[in-house]
């Protein structure tokens, strides 16, 4: 039996997951990272993408947007703006959002607008990627 830790995944408007977990893989701002039980205390930033976690030997996936994590030896808390299960994603909407963002990126933008649009594009891409794996 693998060593487990308590995992809480919180979105702004819901508690997405709460329970014991064996392994967690998440996209950090500098690449993908994995967490097992008894990890050293760490604070990390979450970037838009897909997180995976294993409970009772079963892998589960979810698409997240920006946020952060608090990792302690016996618990992990994930905070994100939005979290969705792959089956909840509306591909058509994500595609439309992607196209809109790409369209905007072609125009002259202020730095702030550029950052906004890039973040939107990243979210849309993460959604599409997460949902496509499902099928």
């Amino acid at each position, binding site marked *: 039996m693998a060593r487990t830790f308590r995992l809480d995944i919180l979105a702004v408007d819901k508690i997405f997951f709460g329970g014991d977990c064996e392994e967690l893989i998440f996209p950090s701002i500098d690449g993908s990272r994995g967490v097992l039980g008894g990890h*050293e205390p760490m604070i*990390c930033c979450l970037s838009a993408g897909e997180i995976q976690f294993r409970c009772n030997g079963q892998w589960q996936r979810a698409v997240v947007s920006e946020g952060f994590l608090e990792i*302690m030896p016996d618990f992990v808390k994930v905070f994100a703006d939005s979290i969705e299960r792959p089956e909840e994603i509306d591909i058509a909407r994500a595609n439309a959002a992607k196209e809109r963002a790409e369209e905007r990126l072609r125009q002259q933008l202020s730095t702030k607008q550029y950052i906004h649009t890039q973040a939107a594009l990243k979210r849309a891409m993460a959604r599409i990627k997460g949902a496509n794996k499902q099928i």
Partner: protein
Amino acid sequence: MANMREIKERISSVSDIMKITNAMYLISSSKLKKARAFLDRTAPYFDNIQATIRHIFDHTENFEHPFFDNGRKKPEDKKTYGYIIVTGDKGLCGAYNHNIIKYAEAELAKHKNTALFVVGSIGRAYFERRGMNVDTEFLYTAQNPALYRARRIQETVTELFLRGQLDEVHIIFTKMERNSEVPTSIKLFPLDLDLFGDETYEKKYADAVLEPSPEAVMDHLVPNYAKGLIFGVLIEAFCSEQNARMTAMDSATNSAKDMIAQLTLDYNRARQAAITQEITEIVGGARSLKRK
């Protein structure tokens, strides 16, 4: 006593207004129900984020970061205090707007240089009329709080804070407590640890590492936290507004009912008096005829 026609008109105008207040009561109570449910769903995130930030600071070494830059070595009268004030977009909600504006004015009077960021048109109009330093490009509605709006607000104030145009940022909003609304203020920037409750915390773990670097983590984490906080504040304020409107409209409907009852009584009295007078006139007339 007023004449019958006048009273009748009065009754019909009061009952028309009662229809409006009653409709507004129903609308705001359904909006409140929705907002309450939303508040309940965001509450865990909100509570957890505060506890976690506290926990994070307990487990990190002290380091320098612009977000913690307290004081900035400026004398008090050179500092600029930024205030985000959350008011309603509409009136007819009892003392809600009045209370928050009065509270905000008392807070603003403490400092010499202030900059206001007002959410909701009632407050914006009020402070603009007063000639206060209101950011005119800061136009956000208080209706249906959304995350992207919280993000925009956060970006605006964070940028100004980091550029040094604001030295402190506070949020003034109305908090729901049981069934009453209480104006409160919380400090957003600079972060200081007293913000997160001062219960003596027993340190359980070793110092946490911040990956990839403390600066990078703080650059992401703090705006994220601020966004969460602002979002929670917007929802709480929206909830309070609906609650205030609901109570105000309920009591308006009740007093309209009382008024109608009183006016109906007056009307009946006037009617009776008119009948009595008519009878007296007829009887008097008949008697004088008889005498002849």
